[in-house]
């Protein structure tokens, strides 16, 4: 059952990577990055799953789930958000100059 969650995450990761590779629109590139990031977070969170687990708030009323992936996810979310905010800031800056977010029209970003 948990494998389904992992499979979803891996598929999302690959969709993100594929988007970045073939799309020529900078916003879609950033969307691809966001997809990849969410997929990694999904994998990390799923790895903490325990059948029938309860939230890790003491005292526990049963077997608690693994708290470590939650902590990693919180950390990674914030880091990913900073990256994406920065990417959007760059794109806004570039859009003001070129009036486009199409990669082919922005000279230095081809290839």
């Amino acid at each position, binding site marked *: 059952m948990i494998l389904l969650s992992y499979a979803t995450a891996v598929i999302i990761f690959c969709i993100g990577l594929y988007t970045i590779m073939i799309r020529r629109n900078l916003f879609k*590139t950033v969307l691809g990055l966001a997809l990849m990031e969410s997929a990694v977070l999904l*994998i*990390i969170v799923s790895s903490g799953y325990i059948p029938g687990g309860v939230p890790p708030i003491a005292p526990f009323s049963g077997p608690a789930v693994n708290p470590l992936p939650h902590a990693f996810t919180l950390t*990674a979310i914030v880091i990913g958000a900073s990256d994406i905010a*920065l990417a959007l800031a760059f*794109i806004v800056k*570039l859009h003001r100059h070129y009036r486009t977010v199409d990669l082919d029209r922005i*000279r*230095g970003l081809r290839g």
Partner: protein
Amino acid sequence: MTLVLAIMVPLLSAFLVPLFHLARKTLSVGLIGIMGLASISAALAAAHTGWYSPAVSLLGGWAPDIGIALVGDRLSSAFLLMTAIGSGAALACALEKFGGGPWRFYALFFLMLGSMNGILLTGDLFNLFVFYEIFSVAAYLMVAFSMSWQALEAGLKYLVLGTIGALFILLGTAFTFMATGVLNMALLAEALASIPRETLTAISACLVLGLTIKTGAFPVHFWLPDAHSSAQTAVSALLSGVLIKVSIYALMRVCYIFFLGTNGAVFLAITVIGSFSVLGGHLMALRQDDIKRLLAYSTVAQIGYILIGIGCASAAGAAAAVFHAFNHMLMKMGLFITAGNLSEEKGTREICGLTGLWKSHPLWVSAFAVLSASIVGIPPFNGFMSKWFIILSSAGAGTVIPALVIAAGTVISAAYYLRVLSAFISPDEGSSYDLPPYVPRKPRRRSVSFAIVGSFALLCLVLGVMPFSPIFREYFSSIGQTAVDVEAYVGLVTGR
């Protein structure tokens, strides 16, 4: 204690810079200088500790498996010394050029310095990722710092590729955590030996791919030439000289600790990537007309040499790689500072426009000649020695192909560096180029920059002779020993 301070002193300086800015509009050069000196001396103190008495610092007092441990051994000390020298030189150049005005630049600089020391000292895989992100975000912004359109484009390109690299590193970390439940690198070295083969393949693919993107090796090097050529001179020197070396360290540390005993294919892959980088980097450099892009592509090639050294998976290869990394730091920082200053003087970065400089700036041109002779690998200089060691160790690992690649690369690099030098020496034909000349606002003093370039050139000569002394050779081989001796590392961290 010293290990923590090497990270915290630069970070505290970075947090204080905005407050100082709010208190007084311009920061004094002296204040930044004091902060820089404090940060660099903290890094040197950590390097000293790591070299003479390898130390583990348990953060929060927790044992290495439940908390985070900082580890300083000889490999980290060698790289700490490298970053301290390199970033000190870059800071001096930046202070000479910008003064105390751009406070955000200095905040980013200190953040970068602290996070580099963090990468070099951390013993925890997730912590490595966190520091890598501070380091990368600061690097994207430093590339974009000049705010020209080329710089912004280069910054965005670097950001997209760098984030993909970071996500692969995070994915590799996640897989490692799922397979073993621990994240301390020393404990992982033991735990990874007993996980399923498929998982190990996925982990090594993710980590090596992510770290290779961050290093800027050939198939995924797109960001590097743009980023290194469109930044300001001091930043270019820092990027090429120091940042790349930190990524090299991370690659070296992770691969040696995790995959030395478990997955030998990783090292074959690194050797192949390295060989392609050497050829690709040199061939692309040959085609460039812009001197800074030429130097940036040359960096791609030099990364290839270092990767070939790492790919030998032997103590000798690791030692040669560290030696070449150190030499490349000296040579490429000197070359970038020289090229930046000379091209600002002439108002163009096209090589054909940089004529007649031998008449007007003989000292700079001779420093450039020494540094480029060294990077090409002319015998009395250090570049020759480290390439020679890399060839020896790769031949010792059983294949001749990397050695042949290195030899071919040397010939190509000689061709393009000679082209630059002949342009410098050829007489000035007046202002034949039609580019609008960049007029410097006022004549600048560049004595600090020149002192740095001169001393780096001198060091190149000294380091070219040093390997003949047995003490020096022993020092360097001990770095290689530390790098490949996983058991000693595990013993150091776990206290067994």
